[in-house]
């Protein structure tokens, strides 16, 4: 087993109203960036997971996304491997 560092990115689904993104968009425009066409706000969740392989780690994180980390009604998610960490357990 090794310990993997995963980054889960959760973002509002396309087409869904994102009130936070809208507010930030308005703020950016009023600060002098009219070229900003759209803003969407998501979140990043960092996981430190013991797994037998990269594939295993990503599969585990994907299962966590389906069960808890993302709501399929409103959110999409991506799982990315951020690195294999020091201090891995045997």
């Amino acid at each position, binding site marked *: 087993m090794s310990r993997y560092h995963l980054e889960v990115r959760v973002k509002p689904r396309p087409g*869904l*109203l994102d*009130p*936070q993104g809208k*507010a930030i968009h308005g703020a950016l425009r009023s600060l002098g960036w009219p070229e900003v066409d759209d803003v969407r706000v998501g979140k990043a969740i960092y996981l430190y997971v013991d797994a037998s392989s990269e594939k295993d780690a990503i599969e585990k994180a994907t299962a966590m996304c389906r*069960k*808890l*980390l993302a*709501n399929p*009604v*409103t959110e999409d998610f991506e799982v990315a491997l951020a690195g294999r960490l020091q201090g891995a357990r045997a």
Partner: protein
Amino acid sequence: MKAAVISFPGSNGDYDLYKAVQLVGGTPTFVWHRDKGALKAYEAVLLPGGFSYGDYLRAGAIASLSPIMEEVVAFAKAGGPVVGICNGFQTLCEAHLLPGALIRNEALRFASKHVRVRVERTDTAFTTDYAKGQVLSIPIAHGEGNYEADKGTLERLEGEGRVVFRYVDAAGVATDAANPNGSWHNIAGIVNEAGNVIGMMPHPERAMETIVGSADGRALFTSLVGSLTSSLAGSA
């Protein structure tokens, strides 16, 4: 009516619900979210408002995976009446007992005020003591009450008449101005397909007596008591 009022860490509407059940002659009991085998003794299950688990991740998300929720799901699947108010509604959506999701209010502000809702259906266990089209004054208190669902789900909800309460103006019209949070179709409350699970953002348990501004929530609880009494009489 023997009613279980579920308490999660961060619930704040559980005492109001407890009192509401008492006010209509029912017998409430607090059930802690970690209690196992706790729901067998009850005729109704009520999920309160509040901020379970601090609304971390998503409102209701972590509560929906609490030990008690497996039993709430089983209770609902067996046809038992389940009421989710505010955070309880969010939790029922997260637990997939109701479709859709509640996201951040469109205006990004927490909304705490009395709103008007129209009763769309009076043939559910929760609304028999209302009149169809009746306009109620009931308080809301939420930051994430913006009801969203995909187009197919919304069409099904409307097609099957599963929207029970809708935000309206004083004339009973569902306008944008009367919508406090940006919910699709001014949806304030819905029922599941079988009609025994209701979720709503307004707080009927905080509108039980005129001294607090409105007693319009009371009929929801008397309806529930009445439906349980009649279903017991029917099965006897």
